[in-house]
Structures are given as C-alpha cells and as structure tokens.
C-alpha cells in the first residue's frame, strides 16, 4: 500500500490510517451489495439510508486522503441516492444497475494501484450524473465534486446520529460487522461492537487452546473425580468450542454472493429468476467455504444459462414465468449436503446418450442398455459438454469435470439427477472429517492393532461390529478379489489394515510361536483350529482364545461409501488434539496427523482418504453397481444378473450370485494346451471357456488384447467364462422366455431395453465343457422320481424345475409354501418320493414343514431335502435338527441332482417302498 496515496506524506501513522480506511470501506461496500439488490423488489427507506451512509463515509474518507477518483464516483452516487431518498427519483432496475456498477467501481478502485486514480471513470460519472439530473449534460454544474470533506446537502440531510460514520474514534460504531453479512446489523437497532483480528492470530489461539486441552487430558485420569478439576475441564471444552467457532462462517455468506450473479446474468439473458436460499446459517470452516466458491459459481451460472428457460419458453411449457434456483445446505448423516437445484428444462438423457455415442464413450447398443440416471453422469466426463455453442457465460472451457474435480479435492462427492422439463439437481456432500485442521480437537476412537496404538476420527466411524465365531463369519464373502461383509442391506468391502499400514502380520500358533501370517482372507485367519480337530469346549477356552475368535470391525465412512477395517482392540474414545506429523513421516499419506493421548503416549491419526487411496479401494460407479446388485440379491432375493457381451452385438447374462469373481485378463497371458486355453489365477491355472465353442453364438470378429473372465461360484474346479466386457447389471424380471432353452447351456432369453439377452445355464455349460469333471453319475432311473417342491419364488421355481427336467425328471409337483406342501403330502402321501423344500417361505417355513412331517408316521419316511440360499453353518445345523435328510444350496445344480439321486436310491431300498 506504500505510496499508493498521492499527495500524502506517507509515514507510518498515515499508513495505518489508510489501511483502516481500505478495510472499513471494503466492508461498507460489500455490505451494501445485498441491500442494493433488495432495493429493486422492495424499496425501503431504511435500506436507502444504509446505502447512502455507506457511500457517504467512503466518499468522505476518500476526500480526506485526497483520492479524487473514489471521491468523484462516491459523490455522484451519493447525490443520486439523495434524490432517491427524497423520492425525486424512483428506484428502477436501471438505477439499481448504475448504483451497483458504482459500488463495483469503488470497490475496484480501493484495491487498485494508486487507488484507481488512473482508471477511466468518466463514463460512469456521466451516467450517474445523468441519472440524478435527469438529462445527459456532463457540463452540469451542480454540487462541487471536490468539496471537502463531504457534500453539504448530504450532510444536512442526514439525521444527527448518523454523522458518527465519519468519525472513526467514536465508540459503539454501528457499521456493518462482517464483510458479507448483508442483513446489515445497522437495521435492527442493536449495537454490536466488533474488532477485526488476523487469521494468523486465530490460528495461534487455536493451537494454544489445543495445548491446554492436551494438558487437561493428561490430568484426566488422575483428577477425574475432583470437583474443581471437572469445572476447569468443562470450561476448557467450552473455550475450545468458542475458538473453533470463530473460524467458522455461515455458508449464507457464500450463498448471498450468488444473488448478484443470478441477477446480473438473468438480466443479460432476458430471464426472470428468483434465487432461494435455504440453510444459510449452517457454518463451515473458512477454508472450505473458499474452496466451494468457484465450483458453486460455475453451477449457478450453468443453471441460469443452460438450465432455466426464458419466460416465453417457460409459459409455453406451462411453467410460471419466474424461474427458480435453489441453494440449500444442511446436515445429513454426518455429512454436509449442499444442493443447487433449478426448475429449468433439465438434461435430456437421449441428448447425452447421443453425445456419448458420438464421443465413442459407449456403443449404441450399450447406451441403450444404460439407465437414464446412469447416462446423465457422462456430463462429468472430461470434455463432455452438451452445449453446442458455449456462451461466454458458462462455457468458458470449464466443464463439469473440473467442477467435480475441484469439489473432490476437498473430499466432496458430487451427484447429479435431472428430469427433462422438470429441472436439475446437483448435490455435493462434504464429509465432516474434512473439517479437521491443525490443533483442533476432535473426538477420536483409540484402537490397537498389533503393538500399535492409533486414533480414528470419530466422524469417520460409522459403527463398530464385533463378530463372534461361527455364525456371523458366514457374512463375509468374496466378490472379485475383495472380501466383503454383509451388514444389513449393505455389502461392505473389508480392508486389511496391517497391509495398508505396512505392519507385518503375525500369526501366533497354538504353541505360542510367532510367524508371518500369510492367510489372505479374514475368514481363514479366524480358523486357528485346523479342520477336523475338535474345538475347545466353551469352558476350556481362555480369554485369549475368545479374543482371537472375535473379530472387531470398524465400519468407516468414506464419502458415500463404507468399508470395514479389522482391529485388535478398542481402547476407548478420547478428545484428541490434532498435531502436525513430524517431517520424517509426513509422506505417509495414511496418517492425517498425530496426537498425544491422555496416558502420554503418542498416537498417529488415520487418514480415511489416504487409507482408501492406499488400499486402492475402488468405489467407482461400476463397483458400486456391482455391490448394489449383489445387495439387492441378498436383500430380497430378486434375481440380479450381470450382462456381458462376447461378440459385439450378442449379450449374455449370468445371475450375480452364481459368480465369485469377474476380472480382466490379457490375451498374451493365456497359455494354450492343444485346443484348450488356461490362465493363471491365484497361482493356479484355470481353464477358459469360450462361448462360441460351447454354444451356437458368434465368435470374436477381431482379436482383442484384453478380455474378461467370469468365474462361477460354488464349483469345485474354477473355470473362467470368457467375455468381452461387462455391460450392466439388471434385475431379471419374470418374463424369461424358457422356450429358447437348450440342452447346451442356455436357460432362456429375455428382452431388456429392446436388446435380446441370453441367460446362461452355467452348470450345463460347464458340464459340456469338461464332462470328466462335471460328470453325471446319477441313479439309473432318476427319471421316475416323483418330487414335491415347495418354493415361494417364481424365479427359483422355474430354475429348479428346469434342473429336474434337464435330467429327465418329469413328475414334479410345485407348492408355493410349506402349508400347501403339507396339504399335498397329507392328501397323497404315497405319490411323492422326495420332498424338496425352501427354508424361507411365507405362511409355513421349511423348518416347520419338515418338523411336522417328521412327526407324522405316514410321512416321516419320505426323504426331505432343504434347498435354500441360507448356507451358514447355523442354518444347516438348524435344518438338520428340524429333520431334513439333506441340505443343499440352491443353484448348485450338480450337487442338487446328485443328492436327489442319492436320496432316491436310499428311499427305493426303504421298506416302505419295497
């Protein structure tokens, strides 16, 4: 700022005064922007007064410093406002426009070198003059522009108490407090005195209070019960909260900025738009608000420019002329949700589809298979702009991908949904963990893993789960190479924290020897007792045994996703002070900082973002849908299928729960033995099944470098079914056409979005592929077997009946629940050889059914087989206890048939049938 003021002898004192002038004027100017905007719709004399006073004091002080440019603009704006105040000039949009421009110019000049004395302000001054004089004569000789310190007229017109504005020494100054308050604290009559502090002072304060909390924590265990200490402790907590509070600002400050953007833009475009702000009182750390500013500007501009239509267009489509734009902020499940919504024309999925095809992001057929909701997400693709001719307003070479990237940098997750003709909604979610700054105090979960103590920010912890042996372990499954845990309706990827943190896994064998633990999965790691060896009975087990048996998972939240980490022990919850990492470990991105615990120990704080990065946990949309797919299967047993292609235009589907793994492979890694192809998988060779060799389908037109394989689950000899790429996941509706089914491995066909998709019968396929391994060795006259099937779900009924039919079994009676089956059995006990029953059924479940028939002397000799998707040990035991003779898992055709055959054989030798 040195020497910016011309003609002023610059010494330290005046330098300080000048600084004060700039800061104060900037506040004044920024405060009246909102008031000016309000003037247009609601002209209140209070507002005019406020604007007048602000301009007046800027002008006055500028005169004092002999800043002629500022003074001239200020003077003319003041004169105009004076006339508005006396009702000589009505407030029109044009007048507000000029005043806004005057305000902007004043603000620019304030920060320009030489206080804008070289700026060309003649045009603006002329316009202002024209506005207040009513005619365009620039030679107008009215109030002397150079009069010092202020315009007499104006001075007289002011009520007596307003004059204090010019006297900085005056106490209880009623100037606007914060640069962007907008509401103008002047108006409510209460006087608040404020001071300005530098951010660095605040940060220091925060650091110091952090130290205090830390000291308090170390005394905590010792003096916890002392009354004076408790009081002190509470005060410290409060003090800390207050200091934190100072750094926070309401998001309304940011939102209000867009009132101007929306007003100016919509005027330029000839649109009428109202901006609605909701949740402006929600507070965020300044740094986050700063980071949000640019992306939100872009989104607001987009909505005004591309989203909301012109009035004519709106009334044609039956909407109100006034377009609506909403900015909202609120807390939602540990996150801060920010929304930008408009009621404009929305984004038409077909336009995006066409564009995506044009840009070769998808093929036409694939685009057809994608849902409208999925299609919209293409706008986040780099270089993807739907606007044919980008306007100067929003098409500044900045695409939605940049918006998303910028938001993701601060940990935001962005989502978009849009309905044609209805509008567009964009949501950004900020996890609360992002708000952690140095020296701040956060709630942390203190955990043990190996010999290490670590802290996890409480906000990232979704829940803690203790898995006891046996039962719950069944909830862990493997999808692709990722272990997942079924938690209620979610599938949660599990992460080996030891690997991420580079802790060698140790395995303590029964004789106490430590060795490296090479077991890959959590499930394996739990099995400390070798198979076949008896487990210790409950009372023989020591505490250590029990601990080893129980797995403690912490479910962490990352953006919208959850993942689980296994820890050895949870020490408790503590208020921890976040400290910077020492330089020597700063590069370890898995740590967010360090802290000193109440016991004086140093602990590292885990960085959830870093963990995800290091674990390369791919929460990409593809995987999400995969998980969602699997989730739906688990949730309500609706059949979810993976759709893939082989030759470009031929689509195949496989039920998701029949797959254990989908992965890519490179053709160059394929080894050939005669006609057969193999690939390395988990260190073993796995044969590859090409659909064109097993079925009557097209082969690949041109060789590809990379293909995918799908490995069916629950088979003894893993085989990879080769595909070209995964297209989508869909729910299989019940319109499966089984007429197309053939003996070679096609279960049926169905249509999805006008594309024909072939549902594969994996087990038949495999049987044909490798008859030696997937051989039939069934009872010779299995065809004669008469089966009573109890199954409530249509899909499975179809599937199972088809299993049986494929082996020539024709006599199948189908019941929808246990009760129906029981009635059928009681009615004709001699007409069934085998009962095959589902477990989970309405009215009467499988357990009840079997326990009833096993107590009925006429029925108890009929072999009963459970056929279910409940495959936990507990369920099996329960089933066998209830009286089932066999227990098989659905979809494993081979085993099911073998078991049927066995049961049939034994039953034939049964005296009842002899």
């Amino acid at each position, binding site marked *: 700022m040195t020497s910016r003021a011309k003609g002023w002898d610059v010494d330290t004192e005046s330098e300080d005064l000048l600084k004060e002038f700039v800061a104060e004027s900037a506040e004044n100017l920024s405060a009246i922007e909102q008031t000016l905007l309000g003037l247009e719709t609601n002209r209140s004399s209070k507002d005019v007064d406020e604007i007048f006073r602000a301009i007046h004091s800027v002008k006055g002080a500028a005169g004092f410093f002999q800043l002629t440019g500022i003074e001239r603009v200020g003077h003319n704006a003041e004169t105009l406002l004076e006339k508005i105040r006396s009702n000589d000039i009505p407030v029109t949009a044009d007048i507000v426009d000029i005043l806004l421009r005057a305000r902007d110019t004043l603000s620019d000049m304030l920060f320009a070198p030489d206080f804008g004395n070289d700026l060309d302000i003649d045009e603006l001054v002329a316009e202002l003059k024209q506005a207040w004089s009513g005619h365009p004569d620039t030679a107008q000789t009215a109030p002397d522009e150079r009069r010092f310190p202020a315009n007499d007229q104006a001075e007289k017109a002011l009520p007596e108490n307003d004059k204090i504005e010019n006297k900085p020494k005056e106490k209880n100054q009623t100037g606007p407090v914060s640069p962007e308050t907008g509401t103008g604290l002047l108006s409510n009559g209460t006087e608040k005195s404020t001071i300005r502090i530098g951010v660095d002072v605040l940060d220091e304060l925060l650091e110091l209070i952090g130290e205090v909390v830390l*000291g308090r924590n170390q005394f905590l265990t010792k003096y916890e019960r002392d009354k004076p200490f408790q009081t002190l402790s509470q005060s410290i907590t409060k003090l800390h909260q207050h200091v934190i509070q100072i750094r926070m600002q309401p998001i309304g400050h940011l939102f209000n900025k867009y009132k101007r953007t929306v007003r100016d833009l919509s005027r330029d475009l000839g649109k009428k738009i109202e901006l609605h702000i909701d949740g402006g009182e929600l507070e965020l750390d300044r740094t986050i608000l700063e980071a949000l500013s640019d992306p939100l500007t872009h989104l607001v501009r987009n909505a005004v420019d591309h989203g909301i239509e012109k009035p004519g267009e709106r009334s044609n489509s039956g909407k109100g002329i006034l377009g609506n734009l909403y900015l909202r902020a609120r807390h939602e499940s540990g996150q801060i949700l920010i929304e930008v919504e408009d009621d404009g024309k929305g984004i038409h999925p077909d336009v995006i589809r066409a564009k995506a095809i044009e840009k070769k992001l998808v093929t036409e057929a694939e685009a057809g298979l994608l849902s409208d909701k999925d299609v919209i997400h293409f706008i986040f693709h780099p270089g993807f702009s739907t606007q044919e001719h980008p306007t100067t307003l929003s098409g500044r070479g900045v695409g939605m991908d940049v918006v998303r990237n910028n938001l993701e940098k601060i940990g935001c997750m962005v989502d978009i949904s849009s309905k044609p003709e209805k509008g567009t909604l964009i949501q950004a979610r900020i996890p609360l963990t992002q708000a952690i700054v140095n020296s701040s105090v956060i709630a942390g979960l203190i955990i043990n893993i190996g010999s290490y103590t670590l802290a996890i920010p409480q906000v990232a912890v979704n829940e803690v789960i203790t898995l006891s042996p046996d039962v719950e372990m069944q909830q862990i499954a493997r999808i692709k190479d990722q272990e997942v845990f079924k938690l209620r309706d979610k599938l949660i990827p599990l992460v080996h924290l030891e690997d991420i943190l*580079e802790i060698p896994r140790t395995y303590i064998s029964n004789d106490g020897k430590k060795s490296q633990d090479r077991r890959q999965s959590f499930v394996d790691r739990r099995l400390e007792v070798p198979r076949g060896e008896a487990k210790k009975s409950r009372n023989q087990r020591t505490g250590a045994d029990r601990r080893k048996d129980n797995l403690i998972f912490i479910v962490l939240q990352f953006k919208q996703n959850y993942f689980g980490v296994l820890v050895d022990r949870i020490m408790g919850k503590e208020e921890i002070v976040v400290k910077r990492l*020492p330089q020597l*470990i700063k590069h370890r991105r898995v740590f967010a900082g*360090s802290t000193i615990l109440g016991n*004086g*120990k140093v602990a590292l704080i885990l960085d959830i973002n870093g963990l995800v990065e290091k674990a390369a946990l791919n929460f990409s949309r593809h995987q999400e849908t995969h998980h969602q797919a699997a989730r739906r299967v688990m949730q309500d047993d609706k059949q979810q299928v993976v759709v893939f292609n082989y030759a470009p235009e031929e689509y195949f589907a496989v039920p998701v729960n029949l797959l254990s793994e989908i992965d890519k492979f490179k053709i160059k890694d394929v080894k050939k033995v005669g006609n057969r192809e193999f690939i390395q998988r988990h260190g073993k060779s796995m044969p590859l099944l090409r659909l064109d060799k097993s079925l009557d389908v097209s082969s690949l037109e041109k060789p590809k470098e990379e293909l995918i394989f799908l490995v069916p689950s629950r088979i003894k000899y893993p085989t990879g079914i080769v595909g070209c790429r995964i297209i989508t996941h869909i729910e299989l509706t019940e319109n499966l056409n089984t007429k197309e089914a053939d003996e070679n491995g096609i279960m049926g066909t169905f249509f999805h979005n006008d594309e024909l998709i072939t549902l594969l019968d994996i087990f038949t396929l495999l049987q044909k592929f490798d008859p030696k391994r997937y051989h039939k060795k069934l009872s010779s006259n299995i065809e004669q077997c008469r089966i009573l099937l109890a199954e409530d779900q249509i899909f499975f009924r179809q599937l199972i009946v088809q299993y049986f039919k494929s082996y020539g079994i024709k006599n199948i009676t189908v019941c929808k629940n246990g009760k129906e089956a029981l009635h059928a059995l009681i009615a004709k006990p001699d007409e069934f050889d085998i009962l095959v029953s589902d477990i989970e059924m309405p009215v009467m479940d499988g357990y009840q059914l079997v326990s009833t028939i096993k107590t009925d002397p006429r029925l108890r000799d009929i072999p009963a087989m459970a056929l279910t998707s409940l495959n936990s040990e507990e369920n099996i035991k329960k089933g066998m206890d209830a009286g089932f003779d066999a227990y098989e898992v659905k979809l494993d055709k081979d085993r099911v048939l073998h078991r049927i055959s066995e049961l049939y054989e034994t039953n034939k030798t049964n005296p009842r049938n002899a």
Partner: protein
Amino acid sequence: MKYATFYIADDLFGIPIYLVQEISRQATVDPIPGNDSRIEGLMNLRGRTTAVINLKRCLFKSGITAASTGQRKKMIILETQDGLPQEALDLGLNAGDEPVVLLIDDVFKIIDGELESFYPPPAHVNETYIEGVMKSGEDLISLLSIPKLILGLVTHMEDTNHGS
C-alpha cells in the same frame, strides 16, 4: 568447535555440540507402523510429537546390526534451526526445522575439535552420512552430518513411497 561424541555399538561418532539441545536417558518411544526400521517411533517431547531416529539402523550395513544389538541407553534431542546461537550460524551449521531425536548407545565425552587429521570413513559404516573421521588421542571418531542424515531419511522414504 566442540563435538559431542557418543557410542553406537563399539564405534564412536560425533556431532557439533551446537546441534545438541539435550542429552537424556531414553524415554518411552511409541512405535509407529511401517517398514522403515530406521524410524524407531514417535515420542512426546514436551507436548510435541517428535520422530525418533535409530542411528544404528541408519549407519550400519545390515548384518553388523544384528551382531551388535545392545540395550540403547541414551537419546540426543537435536537443536532446531531457530534455536541455533549466532556463533553456530556463523560457522555455517544447519539444523532441522523441527526437533528430532537420535537414539544412541552411550555418551562418550565432549571433545574440543582440533581437527588434527582426517581419514576416509570406515568401510562398515554407511558413509553417506559421515563427513570424515576425527582422531582424538587413541580414539577415532566419525563425524556425522545431521542435514545429510535427515535428507537421506526423507528422500529415501519418498522413493520407497513412490515405489509402493
């Protein structure tokens, strides 16, 4: 210039006394997870979390380390750049921006460094961090460069980090 000299295993090392803020008995070091065994862990140094460097693992090539493992007894808390006196700055000494702790086996003595003769660093020591060898009476003292040591630790770790 005066040097603080100390034992690591049976070898003597020295650093300028200006770089020593404090020598104390070993306090509790909390281990941190990770592959780099040269970082012993973190300690609570008057409310500040400070990295503790295991000098033995930094200086000796593997093999010898195992043979000469003994109980560590002392630690040297290094001075920070801000804490260096003017004389030290005049001598061109550099320290880190934040405190660092070195684990040593035992303190030997303070030696007035009339640098009579220099020798190349001994072969079994990782010479990257050694500026030279000083002779004091019958004792050979390897002079340790703290900036090189810290730099070596940071850059090497960044390399491994990128590699992983």
